[in-house]
Structures are given as C-alpha cells and as structure tokens.
C-alpha cells in the first residue's frame, strides 16, 4: 500500500515537472514577454513636428503628394466578412488597394493567387505588385483583413524617409538571430526593398518557396530571411516617445492588458497617438474605428496638424 502511494506520488511529481517544462518551452518559443523586454531591435522614429514646420508650406504640399502607397491585402474566402468591412473602410485611403485572394471569390474583385499557402501568396503578390506598379507607387504596405490601418499616419511616419533606400518597417520581433517584421502588425516596404526582393524571388537558394525542413516557417520570417540576403533589415517603427506605431493587437486588448498590468497608466501606457495599425478587429469594430478616427469630433478641440493628407477621390467614408 505504501509503495503504491509512493509510486503514485512519484508519478504525479514527474507529470507536473514534465508539464511545467513543456509550458516553459512553449512560452520561450512564443516569446510572451512584455513589449518592454524586446529592446534589441533597430528603432526608427517618426519625424519631429519642429522639423516639419521648418519646411516651407509649398514644399510640404509637394511632399504630402509625393507619397503613393499601394496596399496589398492577403485574403482567403473564409475572411469574406472582414474583407467586406476592410473594403468599405480604411483601404479607401490607400492610393491604391488590391486584394489578393487564395482563390476566386464571386462576391468581390480580387487577384487570384491560386494557392493556399501564405508565403506563396505573399511572394506572388509582391511580384505582381512590383511588376505592375513599380513606376507608380513608392511604398508598399501589406496587411491582413483583420487589421485597421490609418494611412495618413503611415504617410506622416514615412515623411522624411527616402524610398530609394531599402526600408522594411513594422512591428519587429527577434527570433534567435533573425529580426523580422510581424505580419500581424503590417509590413511596409520601400520601392528599393521591393526591387531587391524581386531580384531574389527567382533564386531558390536564397529565397526558397518552401523554407524550413521540419516545421513550417511563418511567412513573415521567410520574408525577413529573403530580404536579409538582399541586405534589407527590419526596423521597428516608433513615435517620438518610443511607442510602437504598428500594433499587433486591438485597442481593446491593449486597454485590457494595461488595466491589469499598470492600472494607473491606462492611457499613457496604451498606444501611440499616431498609431498606424491595429490588429484583431471584428468587422463591426472596423466601422466603429472608422467612425472614431475620421468622423467623431469633440467640439472645440482643434488640432494643428503640420500636414494634411487628403483622401483620394471617390473615398466617401470620411
């Protein structure tokens, strides 16, 4: 009887230790650490308002018109309700937005990638965009339909950055040696990066279609590997206070976390005032965000923005 209970106890202990080990390992892999621990990435900051005001009014107008952003949204048929919301809302503020779908969907216009694999979709989309639009757009923004993006803030962020330099921006994550931009926050590539990427897409040794032997490597990591070969490195986009502007979570989730982690800094600790993206929204939330960001105004509060980016023609959602 005693030996049985002791072996039972030994078994329990071993089971718990095993479980603990697995959870720990799982966590290290996912990298559940606080954002604050991830300070080993390259920072790239938004322009300072004073710098902008030094530029003359005319030059500023010219500058605001010189940004042409092409939006790539990768969709699958199951995303159709999100797709509808995204189509109706923020993508109207892109200079051009196109939806790249894994297969043809009758309801909406899209470009058929004829594959289910995210990495292949991404490659094909980038190639298509580059071949067709290399002369018309100088920045390329890739998003998922669960995202809400504020294009004006993106343009403001890119203001003093030269697109003929290889920029690869977003919310960066470090995985071992590789620093990559998470697709969950949106990926921004300058035309130079697109050029370099496209020159490598045809070389399977550098940019394989099937990366990773045993586990499938996520598409954002594969992109980073590819770009690294081309000498393009990921940079984390931040505002002047060091807060991320590309967010992989929704506002609600940020606030929820802030309320439990640091309840006296809910607003300060939450999000940047000039955030570009939020992720994890439902279709209804997209409409609410659109309303909140562009239409709802508190009377008597006047914002003196240094620059104005007018929405493109035909965008009636402002």
């Amino acid at each position, binding site marked *: 009887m005693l*030996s*049985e*209970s002791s*072996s*039972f*106890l*030994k*078994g*329990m*202990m*071993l*089971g*718990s230790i*095993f*479980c*603990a080990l697995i*959870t720990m390992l799982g966590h290290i892999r996912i990298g*559940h650490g606080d954002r604050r621990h991830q300070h080993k990435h390259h920072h790239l900051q938004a322009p300072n*308002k004073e710098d902008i005001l030094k530029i003359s009014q005319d030059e500023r107008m010219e500058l605001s018109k010189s940004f042409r952003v092409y939006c790539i949204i990768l969709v699958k048929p199951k995303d159709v309700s999100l797709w509808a919301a995204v189509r109706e809302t923020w993508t109207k503020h892109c200079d051009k937005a196109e939806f790249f779908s894994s297969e043809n969907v009758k309801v909406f216009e899209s470009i058929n990638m004829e594959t289910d694999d995210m990495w292949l979709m991404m490659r094909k989309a980038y190639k298509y965009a580059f071949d067709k639009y290399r002369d018309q757009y100088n920045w390329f923004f890739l998003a998922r339909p669960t995202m809400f993006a504020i294009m004006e803030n993106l343009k403001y962020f890119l203001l003093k950055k030269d697109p003929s330099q290889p920029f690869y921006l977003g919310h960066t994550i470090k995985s071992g040696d590789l620093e990559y931009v998470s697709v969950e926050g949106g990926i921004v590539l300058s035309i130079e990066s697109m050029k370099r990427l496209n020159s490598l897409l045809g070389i399977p040794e550098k940019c394989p279609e099937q990366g990773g032997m045993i586990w499938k490597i996520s598409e954002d990591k594969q992109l980073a590997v590819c770009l690294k070969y081309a000498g393009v490195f990921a940079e984390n986009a931040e505002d002047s206070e060091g807060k991320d502007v590309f967010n992989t979570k*929704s*506002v*609600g*989730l940020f*606030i*929820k976390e802030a*309320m*439990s982690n640091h*309840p*006296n*800094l*809910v*607003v*300060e600790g939450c999000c940047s*005032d000039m955030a570009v993206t939020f992720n994890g929204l*439902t279709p*209804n*939330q997209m*409409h*609410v*965000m659109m*309303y*909140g960001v562009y*239409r*709802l*105004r*508190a*009377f*008597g*509060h*006047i*914002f*003196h*923005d*240094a620059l104005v980016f007018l929405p493109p023609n035909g965008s*009636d959602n*402002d």
Partner: protein
Amino acid sequence: MSEIHFREMASKSWLNFLTFLCGSAIGFVLCSQLFSILLGEQGDTQPDILHNDPHARHADDNGQNHLEGQMNFNADSSQHKDENTDIAENLYQKVKILCWVMTGPQNLEKKAKHVKATWAQRCNKVLFMSSEEDKDFPAVGLKTREGRDQLYWKTIKAFQYVHDHYLEDADWFMKADDDTYVILENLRWLLSKYNPEEPIYFGRRFKPYVKQGYMSGGAGYVLSKEALKRFVDAFKTDKCTHSSSIEDLALGRCMEIINVEAGDSRDTIGKETFHPFVPEHHLIRGYLPRTFWYWNYNYYPPVEECSIQTHVKSNFYYYSSII
C-alpha cells in the same frame, strides 16, 4: 514458495507501475490546468444584446474588467501637445453641466469606476448615485432599494438631492447610466444655444405614449435648471406620481404635465446625437432589423444613421465593454 513470492512481487510491481502512470497523468493534467489559469487569457466576448423591450435595461452582466487599484486615465494630461482647446475650455465655463450617474453598490467597481476615470472628468461636477452611500468611491446614498422597479424612485430622489445641494452650481443637469459614454464638449455645443432658465429637456426623443414624446432613459437626458426646479416641485405638490416601474416614460409624462418642453437634440443636418445603443448598432446599416421596436419609437424620421457627419454629439448607451 519463492515462485509465489516472485509472482506476488511481479503483480505488485505491475500495480506500482500502473499507479505511477496514473499519478503522472493526473499530475500533468492538474499542472496544465494550473498553468492555464495562471496565464489565463479570457476571450474578448462582446455581448451583442438587442433588448426586445424598449424599457429593458442591462442587468448586472458577466463580470467584466474588474479593476484593481486606482485607475487614473490621466485624461486631462497633455496627450495631444499640438491641440488647441480654447473653444472647448470657453464652453466649459459658459455651459455648466452637472452629471449624475445612476449606479448601484455592485456596479461601482465594475462599471462606475470606468465612467469616473474617463468622460465624467469632463463634467463641471459629477455625482454617483447609488442606493447606499459609499464614502470611498464616493457615491451618494439615496436610501432606496436596488432593482429595475426602483429606477424611477431613484431618479426622483437623485434629482431631489441635486436640487437641494447643487442647484446653483450648474445650468444643466444630466442623468446618465453607468454604461453610457458622453462626449461633454458636444453636449455643451448643443446646449449653448438654449437658456437654462427655460423649461426644456433633451435626449433621444421617442414618440409613443406621451403627446410631446419622452426621452429614452438609456441614452441619457439633460434638464435645464428651470426644468429641474419644476420637476422637484411637482412631487412636493403631487402633480406627478411617485410610483412607476418605467422610469423614462414616467419622467416624460411628468415633464408634459409640468409644461417642460421636449427639445430637439438633432444636429445641424438632422442626425440624432443621443444614442440608446452601442456605436456598432447605429453605424452598421441594417444591423437593427426593420421590425425592431426602435424604428417605431423614434420621434424623428431616421436619416442615414451616422453615415457622413462632421459634428456629431453623442451619448452612447449599453456600452458594456470597451471596444
């Protein structure tokens, strides 16, 4: 004899082994449960409740966002450094609004605290009305019971309290629930065109039952100083009844009796500014079915709800969770 002994040993070690396996399985399961609780991530559930009864109110729903510790949103700190708030500040001085929030002891931590940390800071004065006093929050004790049937009684007592203690501190007196969000600046803009010495009140106007209409309780309503005086007086002189289970309707009837006008709170393009539901319900075309009671209750004909607007002033109700 040794054989029997051997067999015994064998069966015993087999049993031991089994119990060992059992133990390890149970240990594993318990541990994983423990971990999942410790690192628990609750799903972001959004209760999409459409009330079938126009006079229904949100019950104490599933425990949301229990706040620990003092939460200070720092809503007035210099968030937007380039922002010019002169006009808003001017209005703050000119149009004084006292907000009182209808709440209860069980909702102080769950809901009223959020209100206190956010929009309530923009009222000229804010009071939290509960059935019992809470000195720490602080909340005023109305000495009533809790419950839906007590709402009108609480409303009467709350307005009475405000009248007796704060009449000269404000021009307009707003009642809101603890799940309402109010944009005070826009409310001031609406009220700035009216004289608080006039007997008038504003909210989301509903047409049934009362000739001049009545204001939806959920979307919040605001009384002028004269309206408040008349309302409190009406109970002293028995012009209005004390008992009713339908707060907004009873108040609306009383307002009509004492000749307080039901005002038009729509904006310059005719869009409503007080909203009885969460933004989603109003923003998304076709969200509320055409057979829903709401469409028949609205006093004014519906304009495309919130589609293209510049100045929108809004009080949202049923805001049970943060976006």
